[in-house]
């Protein structure tokens, strides 16, 4: 780790917001509210490093990743990539920037066109961006990319359905790599894969970073995976970062109550560790991002919530040691001065649900569970 690379910021996100209108109505779409999927995120990603983003489903991870790449237009905020502000960039310029920022998706099958063979999947991007002098040159680039991701040459003439999940994810990675990007946003890159295959892909991502100097934003709900590949981890809750810390610190010294709960909830494949661990069980469900709690968004489930401030004052990210934490009482909680208390669970409605069942189909085998 040299000083230079540590201070070399490739991506800088400032107060990024992505709000989606909630529409109702039969004839006219009426906007009845806003889903605040991302609601004020600041973060920076160092060149050649991996930033991991974790959080439970619906907390806004994917939306943040897409907004960063300008695939979803941000409602507010700034994103600068290598010193260039993307949110105000004319679309033509943005298109040529896209080559430098690529994305890998969770489900390789649905992100690959089933009618295209691997060669045409890989050639497409090269042609779009005018990479490679001629056909031979493009073939050379594609060949090198296949080698890099560990796919054989005969894969070129095959179609996505002819590959296993792990191989398809390699195709997805190859499609991103072939353009020679600097940043790769990987959204749940291994969650659809079996553990033995997951490890192959995780190692591949690691090796590619070492050899190509890539910068990653890795989005995943699996904390162990994220911690394994990340230098820095950001924890999201309801559209905002609640804690950001060097990857090692997050497990040994979680500072935000939500991070503590999250860390304590992840099962570790070691009976000795499991038997010794104290779980912080959170009460109830994640509140809806369409109707987030006031003040600290975690206060409805926080075992350390206090009668003052928590319900009415939204905590901002503050530096505490090497971490950034959004909690009014982080120091007192860390020192043990404040103790956790019981929290009663509150019911959270699934989104878009009415009082009676909408479309109803008979279950295949009613009562088959008994």
């Amino acid at each position, binding site marked *: 780790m040299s000083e230079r690379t540590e201070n070399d910021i490739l991506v800088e996100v400032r107060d990024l917001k992505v709000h989606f209108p909630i529409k109702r109505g039969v004839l006219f779409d009426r906007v009845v509210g806003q889903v605040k999927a991302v609601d004020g995120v600041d973060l920076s990603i160092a060149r050649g490093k991996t930033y991991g983003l974790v959080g439970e489903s619906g907390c806004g991870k994917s939306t943040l990743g897409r907004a960063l790449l300008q695939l979803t237009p941000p409602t507010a905020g700034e994103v600068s990539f290598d010193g260039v502000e993307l949110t105000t960039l004319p679309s033509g310029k943005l298109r040529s920037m896209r080559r430098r920022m690529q994305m890998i998706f969770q489900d390789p099958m649905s992100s690959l066109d089933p009618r295209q063979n691997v060669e045409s999947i890989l050639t497409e991007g090269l042609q779009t961006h005018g990479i490679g002098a001629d056909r031979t040159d493009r073939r050379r680039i594609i060949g090198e990319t296949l080698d890099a991701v560990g796919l054989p040459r005969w894969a070129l003439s095959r179609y996505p359905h002819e590959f296993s999940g792990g191989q398809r994810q390699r195709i997805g990675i190859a499609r991103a790599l072939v353009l020679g990007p600097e940043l790769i946003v990987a959204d749940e890159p291994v969650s659809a894969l079996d553990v033995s295959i997951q490890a192959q892909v995780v190692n591949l991502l690691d090796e590619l970073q070492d050899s190509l100097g890539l910068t990653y934003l890795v989005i995943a709900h699996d904390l162990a995976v994220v911690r394994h590949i990340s230098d820095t981890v950001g924890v999201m809750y309801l559209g905002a970062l609640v804690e950001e810390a060097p990857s090692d610190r997050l497990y040994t010294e979680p500072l935000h109550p939500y991070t503590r709960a999250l860390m304590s909830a992840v099962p570790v494949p070691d009976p000795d560790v499991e038997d010794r661990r104290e779980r912080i069980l959170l009460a109830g*469900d994640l509140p809806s991002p369409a109707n987030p709690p006031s003040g600290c968004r975690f206060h409805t489930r926080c075992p350390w919530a206090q009668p003052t401030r928590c319900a009415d004052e939204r905590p901002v990210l503050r530096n505490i040691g090497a971490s950034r934490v959004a909690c009014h009482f982080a120091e007192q909680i860390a020192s043990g001065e404040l103790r956790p208390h019981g929290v009663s669970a509150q019911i959270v409605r699934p989104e878009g649900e009415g009082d009676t069942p909408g479309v109803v189909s008979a279950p295949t085998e009613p009562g088959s569970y008994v």
Partner: protein
Amino acid sequence: MALLEVEDLSVTFARRGQRAVHAVDGVSFSVDAGEVVGLVGESGCGKSVTSLAIMGLLPKQPGLSVGGKAVFDGTDLLQLDDRSRRDIRGRDIAMIFQDPLSSLNPVIPIGLQVTEVLTRHRGMKGETAAKEAAALLDRVGIPDPKRRLKEYPHQLSGGMRQRALIAMAVACQPRLLIADEPTTALDVTIQAQILELLKDLVRDSGTALLMITHDLGVVAGMCDTVNVLYGGRVVETARRRPLFRQPRHPYTVGLLGSVPRLDAGRGEKLNPIPGSVRDLLPWPDGCAFAPRCARRTDECVGEPPELVHAHDGRSYRCVNPEPLPGMVPAPREEESA
């Protein structure tokens, strides 16, 4: 005697013009009363088919054949007619699935679905049944249970639905609960709630639990005995601690080397198993793991390896298992390379 004794269970799906799929190929394991037993393995290894076969819930399609035995408390479940099997299913064995929505009836309020079980299997009626239903919802941690009774499954979150399903499963006070990936669709903090609930329920009621999962962390936290499945066979059976401390079957070793650990440092190296299941299907003759195995020898092909019962009470299907430290000084060339 074991509460459930599965012996040489096999399930084959034959389709016209295609090679038959031996989804389950001679699976044996047992569950003692009050014990938590894990069935662990990657997708397609036969976990769900095993449990569905035991419960008699496999789709009745031409070409399906089920062999072997599944003896529950002295009765072979596979020999029962549909009616008696349904009786046992309600009274003595209950099952919960990954997706609670598919096993809850969408047009019937939760409360009615729970009281129905109470009426059918415990002979409760009216007020008594409703009271007990509310108590059950409360027991599984559903807030404001009296009001929830009137609600439909779609009005509850995924975690609450899974709780409702667990309430229904334990309503008949079964002696065996089969849970097939009950937390896979849930977020990790909700998973922790549900696993804790299941642990409490088994501890308090003495119900045995057959826990089906792909997550070794879940197994480490709650199973007394673990069965590792690969290619439709149980390849290793051991108590929880010895399995994690000293796995003997190369596949178990490979699985453990593949999972990143939350408590390990950034430098931790993963040791993936090379290749994938997809490349091998249908399973090769002999040891199904052979094409991916670093300890493969000439003996591994041809006949499937016999089940070896080790002196320490564990068993594995492997002719060249991972040696125990200090016991077998078998040299391993691959390791120094």
